């Protein structure tokens, strides 16, 4: 079949600046995600109640509409964006909706009729898409974000600190002070703080990376930074500790510190920062274990879940393990298991519901979809042309990876439980909407990365006027 000049890349290069936009791929993959979403809903209905729910048509139209809108907006505002990001998100959201719907039905069979959470989650997803569209529309060039770095830092810190300052009646749920509950709504401002802080980290590190990359002393073959340059990392460490102390939120604490250290490493290319990070983390962990009963309990439960079952803190984890084990290779099928036996299955433990009903294959598929999302984000970071974009994309992608690792590791007993949410899959408005914002930024940057370079790029002021690094993909 190979004709003399059928290589599309060769032809494209000859034609000038033809880069495939890949929007067709995105549309096809999105259609596939919608199909899986609708089929999953049908299976849940048929297995649990024996008939399709009357709202199925509305639901299907709504969910399809959401992704059509998102796709059209990407087509218009970010035509070169990575075609895998949005379909991966759509698949996770759709699967999450099916599992939440399934748990709703299980709840209705109980003595007390519980609230239906799936429609609420659909509303949150809609809000997420709105925010996604708004970010693509407002942030036409991600480099503009660097201008607002310090503002975003303040906003981020304020969001982070808010639950700690508010009275416990508003902010405390199950021991963790990470909520703002007002008029029937509850949001976790920490989810948004995370993104604000990542933008700030990126801008700040681009600005300061030359200084932070300086090494002065060599100890045992490792080049260590100067004492005065330890400031930022100590600051991040301190804030993480404060989150742990005042909000009793092990997960966010771990998340923020991990993201900062990795971004610092990427910015400076110095492995010694990782080492310092690990030392600080270990120190913090040991101290936290000694001082905080709730941390100690988490760790002890993790080490011996069955020893704390059924009357101790191990109940959740053991139930989760039972669910996963009972699910086995193929799972009980959507609607066929008992995932409602795991407390808070809709939010923290949704992965164990997936593992129980869709089996090992389903759970691994979900992990792989996350992996695709993260690796596409990191790939964007690799090929985007400016240093700020690189760091921002790396930070956002790593944040997603780190969060998925910590929360799934917790649910499957690999790590102590932390109480982080499972992005896109779990019930929870703040997490869902915030992660839509995160993906919007990745889409924006992937568009910039793959877009053919304009002949004369307008100079964009950088924080502290640091030189822009141009890296070829």
């Amino acid at each position: 079949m190979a004709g003399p000049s059928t290589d599309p890349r060769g032809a494209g290069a000859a034609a000038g600046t033809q880069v495939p936009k890949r929007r067709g791929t995105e549309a096809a993959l999105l259609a596939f995600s919608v199909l899986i979403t609708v089929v999953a809903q049908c299976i849940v209905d048929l297995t649990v109640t024996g008939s399709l729910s009357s709202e199925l048509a509305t639901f299907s139209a709504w969910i399809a509409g959401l992704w059509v809108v998102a796709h059209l907006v990407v087509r218009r505002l970010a035509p070169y964006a990575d075609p895998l990001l949005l379909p991966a998100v759509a698949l996770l959201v759709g699967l999450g909706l099916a599992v939440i719907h399934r748990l709703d039905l299980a709840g209705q069979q109980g003595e007390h009729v519980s609230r239906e959470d799936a429609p609420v989650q659909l509303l949150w997803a809609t809000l997420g898409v709105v925010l996604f569209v708004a970010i693509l529309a407002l942030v036409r060039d991600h480099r503009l974000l660097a201008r607002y770095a310090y503002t975003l830092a303040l906003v981020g810190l304020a969001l982070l600190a808010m639950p700690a300052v508010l009275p416990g009646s508003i902010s405390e749920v199950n021991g963790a002070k990470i909520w703002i509950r007002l008029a029937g709504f509850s949001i976790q401002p920490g989810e948004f703080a995370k993104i604000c802080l990542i933008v700030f980290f990126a801008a700040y590190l681009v600005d300061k990376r030359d200084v932070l990359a300086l090494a002065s002393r060599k100890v045992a073959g490792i080049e260590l930074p100067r004492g005065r340059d330890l400031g930022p990392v100590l600051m991040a460490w301190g804030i993480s500790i404060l989150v742990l102390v005042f909000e009793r939120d092990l997960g966010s604490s771990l998340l923020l510190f991990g993201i900062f250290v990795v971004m610092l490493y990427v910015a400076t290319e110095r492995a010694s920062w990782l080492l310092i990070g690990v030392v600080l983390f270990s120190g913090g962990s040991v101290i936290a274990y000694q001082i905080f009963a709730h941390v100690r309990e988490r760790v002890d439960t993790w080490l011996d879940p069955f020893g704390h079952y059924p009357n101790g803190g191990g109940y959740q984890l053991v139930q989760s393990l039972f669910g996963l084990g009972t699910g086995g290779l193929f799972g009980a099928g959507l609607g066929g298991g008992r995932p409602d036996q795991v407390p808070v299955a809709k939010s923290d433990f949704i992965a164990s519901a997936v593992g129980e009903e869709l089996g090992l294959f389903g759970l691994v598929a979900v992990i792989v979809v996350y992996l695709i999302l993260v690796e596409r984000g990191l790939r964007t970071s690799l090929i985007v042309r400016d240093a700020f974009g690189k760091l921002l994309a790396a930070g956002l992608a790593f944040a997603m990876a780190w969060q998925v690792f910590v929360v799934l590791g917790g649910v499957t007993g690999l790590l102590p439980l932390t109480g982080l949410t499972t992005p896109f899959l779990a019930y929870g408005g703040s997490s869902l909407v915030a992660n839509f914002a995160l993906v919007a930024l990745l889409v924006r940057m992937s568009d910039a990365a793959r877009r053919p370079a304009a002949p004369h790029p307008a100079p964009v002021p950088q924080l502290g006027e640091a030189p822009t690094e141009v890296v070829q993909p």
Partner: protein
Amino acid sequence: MNAPLRRVAISVLVLFTLLIVNVNYIQVVRSDELRNNAGNTRVLAEEYDRERGSIVVGGDPIAVSVPTNDRLTYLRKYPQGDLYAGITGYYSLVYGNTGLERSENDVLAGSDPRLFVRRLADLFTGRDPAGGDVVLTLDPAVQKAAMAGIAGKTGAVVALDPSTGAVLGMASTPSFDPNQLSSHEPAKIRAYSAQLDKADPDPRNNQAIGERYPPGSVFKVIVSAAALKAGYTPQSMLKAPNQLDLPGSTATLKNFAGESCNGGADQSLIDALTVSCNTAFAQLGMDLGEDKVRAMAEAFGMDGQSMDIPLRVTGSSVGGIDGKAALAQTSIGQRDVVMTPMQAAMVAAAVANDGRLMKPYLVDQVRAPDLTVIDRTKPKEFSTPISADIANQLTTMMMSVVENGSGKAARIPGVQVAGKTGTAQIGKGIPDHNWFIGFAPADHPKIAVAVFIKNGGGTGGGVAAPIAHDVLQAYLNGHGG
């Protein structure tokens, strides 16, 4: 920045690989273990939607599922409360199931292959699937007499049909109320469980099959069997000193309460068994040698192996015999010899059945929900420890125990009873364990029994034999004894 970025990308890959490996470990390697964990109520909760089969004794259900109005469709009830608790076990939301509820679960839940055709039919006819019934070999009169005899004590009674191995009675005290562990209220279940946790011993332990104790003089039946097999006769004369110096140690072995067997003179084997002479049997054991004693004990089933009837019976064993002194003590059922009451009953049953030991079993029939019998247990021989000849000689010797010796309390007017008492010493200041094994009628045995009272404090003849009497009598009354 691309070099560290690539490293980050690889690290992420490694982290996710860890996740996937761990999930594989849980969902594949540990899958069965987690699924069958007693605390995993998933499979159980699914079963609650199905009408579970009954466990039946003498035509009446002793475990039955009744419909309820709450979230779980069926509630498990045990109409006889604690009478059969050690056998049925419980069926708990919180703690999973135990006893026959566990070992016969496939039948009761309806998933047993023997019910396959029936299940297939349910599928086509739209009938609600139901589990099969398990009909037990137990005799209600025997069970009640046994429980009444050991009520208020820690102990066990096992009664067997010697010709088949069918378990006629199996009682254990202290007992518990399985209804309270099988309710649909987890808080109450936990509270009751906590209450049981505090009791000593735990009432959930079945003393008849799950615990082992030194058998004391009951073991002399086995030593007698070994001697008869080695060419002794009941009339063979044994040395029966008032006290025996144990070789290789400064200790001496005395008779019960320091008594004399025959004024220190030699004594026949039958008389030594009748009065349960310690010094005579200790000397006899040493004369026979460890191999013969051990071989005979193992032939009776004391080889340390557990057995399923289908409840798990802990293995009984003679222990390690280290030297002549140890052999002397072993021969009178002390030292490291340990026996379950079930094993003791098996010894009696083997002698009663002309030396053929039948494998004990609890389940007589498996019935489909429409009461058609789909399976019936066929009696199986477990071993033949002794010949019919030796069995007859032993029977004569054991009749002498009940007629003239330590087991007089087991005598039943008009019925010949054979038996052997046991009083096992545990230590200074701790009350002795009391045993009795026996069978009746001696010429044509219908029932063999073992009675065990933990720390009964009296003698086997004084404490255990009267209970055996009641149990034997209860069965023979109903079976033309």
